[in-house]
């Protein structure tokens, strides 16, 4: 087992884990968005989807376990690598200049940590119902937890919506570098595919930003409103 310890301790091995766990997290973010977009199909569709997820606890918790492990590994290893990177240049340059690196590639730790703090808030808001307990207890006419109304009520608050909008843009920034970059870390770089590899990050980031922003924006503009009977 010493080879495992050695590989994980190396910078390349650590980056490999960051890339693999990144794929898991990106996969989740895509699935999460597609699921949530069902809000545009109406209250019944979204609440039905939410209940379906919760009706199979074994599946839900296996997925959550993989996610939680990936989440902590991704963050743990990047913090370790970032600390090593800071130590590698104790004296910074008087004249700071980058030749071509986009801002997103130089601010991964900041965008990442800001998204992390948002994820904590997001879990407290929708999953655990700590910030708005009165929204979490809503039930629809069929007795299902009323996720639809919870989301609409949440986003009708301009500050809640704004925090989501900012966080989604930061996530987009993070993924526009992260997704293009993970191929390189996994050893995939070839002139035949580099156009796609380069585009993968920005394209996916833009798709996720557009899809996720559509929800708070639709609520704020009144395209999505509360069903009758919910106050």
């Amino acid at each position: 087992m010493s080879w495992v310890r050695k590989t994980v301790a190396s910078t390349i091995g650590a980056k490999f884990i960051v890339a693999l766990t990144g794929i898991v997290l990106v996969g989740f973010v895509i699935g999460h968005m597609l699921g949530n977009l069902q809000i545009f199909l109406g209250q019944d569709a979204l609440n039905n989807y939410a209940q379906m997820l919760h009706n199979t606890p074994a599946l839900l918790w296996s997925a959550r376990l993989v996610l939680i492990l990936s989440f902590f590994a991704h963050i743990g290893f990047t913090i370790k690598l970032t600390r090593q990177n800071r130590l590698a240049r104790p004296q910074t340059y008087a004249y700071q200049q980058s030749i071509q690196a986009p801002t997103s590639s130089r601010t991964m730790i900041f965008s990442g940590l800001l998204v992390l703090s948002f994820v904590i808030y997001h879990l407290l808001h929708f999953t655990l119902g700590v910030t708005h307990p009165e929204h979490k207890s809503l039930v629809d006419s069929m007795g299902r937890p009323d996720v639809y109304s919870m989301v609409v009520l949440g986003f009708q608050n301009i500050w809640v919506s704004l925090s989501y909008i900012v966080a989604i843009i930061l996530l987009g920034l993070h993924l526009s570098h992260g997704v293009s970059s993970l191929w390189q870390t996994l050893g995939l770089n070839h002139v035949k595919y580099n156009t796609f590899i380069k585009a993968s990050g920005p394209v996916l980031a833009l798709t996720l930003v557009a899809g996720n922003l559509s929800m708070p924006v639709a609520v704020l503009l009144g395209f999505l409103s509360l069903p009758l009977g919910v106050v």
Partner: protein
Amino acid sequence: MNLTLKVWRQSGPQDKGKIVDYAVKDINSHMSFLEMLDVLNEELIAKGEEPIAFDHDCREGICGSCSMMIDGIPHGPDRGTTACQLHMRRFKDGDVVYVEPWQAKAFPVIKDLVVDRSAFDRIIQSGGFVSINTGNAQDANALPVNKDSAEAAFDAAACIGCGACVAACPNASAMLFVAAKVSHLGKLPQGQPERAKRVQSMVSTMDTEGFGSCTNTFECEAACPKEISVTNIAQMNRDYMQSSLGD
């Protein structure tokens, strides 16, 4: 042409170091950057001051000695050139130019712009070679090498070990240097028997020397005077993980 130079002066490894301003007058635009520093140094010596220490040797872009950050970019603003190949016509009268040494924990400053790059030598010593019996040179083309591999190996072998990749990297990572060495031998038949061992021990030495890790900003490739491609880094990531996970 008159310039203001802001030069990093550091009397020795223990000194804290600081930026010192120098007004350089009547610079001939045909001078190289190093010749301009020579002129400034002669003036400093004439005034009884300590000249600016900087590394240089071939002055034709091959040796990789002239390591300096010029306005925050290793070897200055031109792509694919070393500091000695940079000419003063690239600057305008009245420009303010920052000149600093490579900054990395693994490259401690010896004096002013001179850094100790022997960390690179230790990385090479740990695996950047092929073990062969020496003797008479064998017949040319006795070992078939396909053209594409030969070209790719040669491109990687163009690395002069100057350290610009480390200097440019926001993480002071040596990945491009190590990758160039790993690829250059790994693409040739002579390098195959030690391929797995080589990447393992060179990466391990790189980590121990205190270089940072790669965040794929690709600043190294842009700064490299020999334009070594980051494709080599992907190749090294692949070789490293293959040799870690394989037998």
